[in-house]
């Protein structure tokens, strides 16, 4: 075995481990938010393991595809899933270093997520059904505004750390201690709106209905069934967990492990779970207390977050 490969092995192992863990937890987060929301509405809500049941059910079915669909249609969910998995490897979760941080930082992360979205949108257009096209065009409209806001928000933190590398960024915050700057809160507010918009939560999209006039993400994936749908659902859940992890990394990195000792990692696991849970509560409250916006109002909401991100960046310099 050549030295280069044997050096890379632990890194690859770590990346695999992180992806496996995140994939395992992702359905739980989605079901957890659904259950908390149900509780706020005085309903019992689905069991916490519902996400896993759904995935098992969908994966056990045979895929049904339209006769007019080309390979693009079949490739869509796979690329979407792969992009989400690849993005997971670029983000530090428990240890203050991303498994594949040598590959790239913020720009690669945003680009990878955009690639997944592009694949899903083209796949939705492929069968020529009006719902797919409608969903794709709506999703792209929102993404066109949300993506620059996401980048600017992440850049605000990167500017303080002087590094675009996510692992380097977290390590910088840990080393210098968290110096609170008003820009942090502005960037956090902007990114929180982006997380809501990107994960299709209520002021932007309603994940619980198939009401054709209002849906965005659901319209895009309306024609998928069986394992294809399972891949889309799983990747969406993973993306949601990933976004919450990003918020945790950027604004509350305290508790993350700086060494690979089991004790530190255990503490980091508890801290990460607690912080993601708190953010999930915030998402639930935001979803329960707001009414869904009209579609033409959504760009206004996303432009608020773009404004926050701009402002955060500007205040950093002043």
């Amino acid at each position, binding site marked *: 075995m050549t030295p280069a490969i044997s050096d890379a092995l632990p890194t690859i192992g770590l990346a695999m481990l992180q992806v496996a863990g995140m994939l395992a937890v992702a359905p739980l987060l989605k079901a957890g938010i659904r259950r908390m929301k149900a509780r706020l509405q005085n309903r019992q809500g689905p069991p916490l393991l519902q996400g896993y049941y759904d995935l098992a059910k969908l994966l056990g079915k045979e895929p049904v595809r339209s006769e007019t669909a080309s390979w693009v249609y079949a490739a869509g969910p796979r690329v979407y899933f792969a992009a989400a998995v690849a993005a997971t490897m670029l983000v530090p979760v428990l240890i203050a270093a991303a498994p594949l941080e040598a590959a790239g930082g913020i720009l690669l992360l945003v680009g990878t997520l955009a690639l997944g979205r592009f694949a899903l949108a083209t796949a939705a257009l492929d069968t020529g059904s009006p719902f797919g096209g409608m969903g794709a065009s709506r999703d792209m409209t929102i993404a066109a505004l949300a993506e620059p806001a996401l980048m600017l928000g992440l850049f605000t933190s990167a500017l303080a750390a002087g590094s675009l590398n996510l692992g380097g960024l977290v390590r910088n915050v840990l080393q210098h201690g*968290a110096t*609170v*700057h*008003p*820009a*942090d*809160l*502005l960037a956090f*507010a902007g990114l929180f709106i982006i997380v809501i918009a990107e994960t299709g939560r209520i002021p932007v999209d309603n994940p619980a209905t198939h009401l054709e006039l209002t849906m965005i993400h659901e319209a895009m994936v309306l024609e998928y069934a069986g394992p294809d749908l399972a891949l889309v659902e799983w990747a969406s859940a993973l993306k949601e967990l990933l976004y919450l992890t990003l918020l945790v990394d950027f604004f509350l990195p305290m508790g993350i492990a700086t060494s690979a000792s089991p004790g530190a990692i255990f503490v980091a696991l508890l801290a990460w779970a607690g912080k993601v849970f708190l953010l999930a509560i915030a998402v639930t409250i935001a979803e329960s207390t707001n009414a869904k916006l009209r579609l033409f*109002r959504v*760009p*206004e*909401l996303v*432009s*608020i977050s773009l*404004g*926050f991100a*701009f*402002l955060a960046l*500007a*205040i950093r310099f*002043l």
Partner: protein
Amino acid sequence: MTTSDVLILCAAGMLVSAYLMVGQNALFTTIRLYGLQALLLGIGSAVIAVSAARYELFVTAAVTVALKAVLIPWFLMRVIDRIGIHREIEPFLNVPASLLVCLGLTVVGYRVSTGFAESSQGVSHHLVGVALSMLLIGLFLMVTRKRAITQILALLTVENAVFLVAVGVTSGMPLVVELGIAFDVILAVLMLGILVRRIVDRFESMDISRLSKLKG
């Protein structure tokens, strides 16, 4: 987390709430955002009371929270309920354009704040910057919003901004002055509330651009 960190977070939260006021159109949400802003101001005052060991500021904080975070929002919501008006704001300028203007105003406010001698240190710099930005945003809101209630809220935002500087940079005015200001604010809100009802009675709308019809 030190007290100055909490103070900066409160100030930044106030700026975020002022910005959200510009960014959305529901009247009730605007009032709630104002309440949140006042609550943050109260927390900020309490933090200064602890860190600067000026315990009379606790009274200021308590008055701020009770009056501005609870009483005034409740009163304004009641006024809206009573007159039963349409609950959306129709600004003269649409939301993205307003946001852009407020962005510029914030940058100006922050830039100007670096000119003060007090704002050379970290915390004061941010407090003055945030307060100046909020002042400008409040003035902008007052100019571009048609509804009388939003104009009251804009005025109160300006008042919050001035209060933030007074408490944050000079660590508080004498208690008598603060009580006087609190009394002034509540009187202003009451009178403006009555005025709003009169406007609605007269024009069956809260749109103050119709006031120009009164010309003889």
